[in-house]
């Protein structure tokens, strides 16, 4: 943690206070220097200041906690079925695309450390229309993502019954997912206990279990003990195409890094912690994903993995370490999908708040309930559709639509960076500058849009329909709102 401002440099003293002079727009935001960006944003407007309470650890926990559930505990079976051992390449491609977006997003976040993340950057950088499409798209994108995580969570909860030897007449994944969706929404409506430390703990436990399991699995696969497995042909019969299609499918596993930016308003020392948390969380989960697929495909043939479906990793663990391994992975899977689902529901509610604050939807959507201090309307707007979508149980479709809506946003984040650097408005003074900005953002935008092309037609259709509907809403409700450059 950084040192706080000394008593002679109060962080906030009101707009008319001479101590609040901001004279260093490119302040490095180093350890002993008060965070200039944070000061500008938190400036007391006569209605109170905002405490920033999330440090670097908390930021990393949000990023990793949101992402790791999907890539390790839901996708390996599906991905291996489609792309064979080359599915690890699919995950690597996803990581590269995510990094290409995370770097420009970091620059934008340090110039605009406000709640709302990608939506905020795009509406301020590119204008209201793209902002509205992305803002409403982000809300629904997170709704789809949450529903996807809930089905994953349901699968692991169902696995508990299997491990306990209780036979159920129907596959319990979907009903359990729906039940968890209702439960989590209620929890976020009425639960006022702070869950940050819980989230940090969950992520720490997960990383320990996974590191142990993957180290063991890798050593085994390489033949250090046991028998070296004969690797099957790396590329699937279709060549590179299935690999790219799989990359588009599993990209949902990388949606979490931008969630760090949606709570940018709560992050301490944002100039330093935002870029670090975003980039580092992508790198960490990327490595875990690639190794996971390597271990999984060395334990079983790809086709067999595909049969195991969402809970393939449980069988992989059983193969290596027997029943205790299976139990460990079931527990880890429950924790991971739970934390992903929970984080996404909360992010979806933040997205609703961000668009409502800007008058793109009625202000009543972000009303806070004084008794519980929670935004009940926004949480309802998130939780309701999430439960409905989870009931469909369409794992791959939900994942792809979520990825589609996020990829549109990611591409536009890159475009916004290029445009803001070109125009260089006065307020644009990021403290972190993306290296080779134009090149990275250019490739990032192209890669984001290109990945969409490899999705199933149904996902692309639903994604486009959502965007058209969002644009229609903007034309109907908020053409008179001007957001470009507004703070």
């Amino acid at each position, binding site marked *: *943690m*950084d*040192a*706080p*401002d*000394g*008593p*002679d440099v*109060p*962080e*906030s*003293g*009101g707009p*008319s*206070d*001479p*101590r609040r002079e901001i004279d260093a727009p490119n302040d490095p935001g180093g350890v*002993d220097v008060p965070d200039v960006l944070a000061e500008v944003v938190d400036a*007391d*407007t*006569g*209605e*109170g*200041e*905002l*405490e920033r*309470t999330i440090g670097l650890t908390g930021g990393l926990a949000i990023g990793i906690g949101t992402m790791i559930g999907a890539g390790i505990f839901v996708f390996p079976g599906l991905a291996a079925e489609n792309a064979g051992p080359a599915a690890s390449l699919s995950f690597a491609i996803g990581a590269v695309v995510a990094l290409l977006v995370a770097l420009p997003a970091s620059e934008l976040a340090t110039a605009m450390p*406000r*709640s709302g993340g990608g939506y905020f950057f795009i509406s301020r950088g590119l204008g209201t229309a793209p902002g509205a499409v992305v803002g409403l798209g982000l809300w629904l994108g997170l709704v789809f993502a949450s529903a996807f995580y809930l089905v994953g969570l349901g699968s692991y909860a169902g696995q508990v019954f299997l491990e306990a030897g209780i036979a159920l007449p129907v596959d319990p994944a979907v009903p359990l997912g729906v039940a968890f969706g209702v439960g989590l929404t209620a929890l*976020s409506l009425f*639960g*006022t*206990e*702070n*869950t*940050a430390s819980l989230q940090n703990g969950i992520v720490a436990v997960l990383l320990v279990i996974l590191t142990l399991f993957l180290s063991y699995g890798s050593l085994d696969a390489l033949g250090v003990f046991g028998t070296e497995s004969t690797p099957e042909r790396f590329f699937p019969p279709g060549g590179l195409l299935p690999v790219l299609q799989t990359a588009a499918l599993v990209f949902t596993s990388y949606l979490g890094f931008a969630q760090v930016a949606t*709570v940018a*308003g*709560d992050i301490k020392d944002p100039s330093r912690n935002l870029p670090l948390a975003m980039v580092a969380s992508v790198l960490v989960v990327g490595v875990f994903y690639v190794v996971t697929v390597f271990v999984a495909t060395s334990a079983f043939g790809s086709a067999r993995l595909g049969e195991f479906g969402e809970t393939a990793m449980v069988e992989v663990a059983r193969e290596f370490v027997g029943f205790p391994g299976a139990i460990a992975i079931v527990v880890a899977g429950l924790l991971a999908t739970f934390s992903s689902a929970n984080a996404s529901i*909360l992010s979806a*509610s*933040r997205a609703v*708040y961000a668009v409502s*604050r800007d008058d793109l939807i009625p202000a009543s959507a*972000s*009303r*806070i309930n*004084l008794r*519980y*201090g*929670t*935004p009940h309307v926004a*949480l309802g707007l998130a939780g309701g559709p999430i439960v409905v979508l989870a009931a469909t149980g369409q794992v791959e479709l939900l994942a792809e639509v979520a990825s589609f809506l996020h990829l549109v946003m990611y591409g536009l984040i890159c475009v916004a960076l290029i445009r803001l650097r070109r125009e260089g408005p006065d307020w644009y003074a990021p403290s972190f500058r993306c290296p080779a900005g134009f090149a990275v953002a250019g490739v990032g935008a192209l890669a984001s849009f290109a990945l969409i092309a490899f999705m199933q037609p149904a996902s692309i259709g639903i994604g486009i329909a959502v965007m058209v509907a969002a644009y229609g809403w903007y034309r109907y409700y908020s053409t008179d709102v001007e957001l470009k450059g507004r703070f």
Partner: protein
Amino acid sequence: MTDTTPPDDPTRTETDRPAVLVPLEVLEGESPPTGTPDLLANAHVVLLGYHVIPEQTATEQAREQFGETAMAKLEGFAGTLAEAGATVEVRLVFTHDERTTIDRLIYEHDCLAVLVPNSTERVEEVLVAVRGTVGIDRNARLVAGLFAGTDVAVTLYHVLDDDETTDDGETLLNGVKAELVDRGMDPDGIEVVVEDAAAAVDAIARHGEAHDAVIMGETDPSVTTFVFGMPSEQVAERFLGPVLVVQRERPEGEAEE
């Protein structure tokens, strides 16, 4: 903002008026209790209104909705305190974690003490619990700053450690008394009490009942940094009157977790 201290005069709060943080959970209906304006008439009061928001809510969101109401209430409280003679600085913070906020403000305003806001009918007799030699200077600055030149009677109180004699205790307290007199207090208004008691917290709370307010130190610095460390919290709960918790000096760059 109500800021009656010229911000460009850094020596003022240091020498003239001890800075005291008064935290109020303003939207939960907390207000400065009866007696607070009298107790802090000579202080530089940092009046902190805070509102704790669950993590699922953005702090901006709460400020937008409740900021104006909360600020208006605080300004009203600040007026009452200023009428009694205090200089007042108002801070309103929307936070997910009150500890972080209170800690930050103590540090930013270099507060000598934090008030546990309980009510009292009058301010005539104050109990000052002295733990040891550490932090005596800050204790003395606070007590003299608040009560020098007033009619308030001060009782200096020390509970003996196992290896201390009554003489040791009296030497300690007389040292504090001399320091208070140096700072302008009337020696006739200062009483010294040394006692051998089993549980310091019980003893302080018991003695507090005969007084209108208690001033005591922070919990053992090696154990916790939280302002309402257990002993002072326990005293406040039993004594039911206002407790001023003297904050230890914070070394540079240490105040955060």
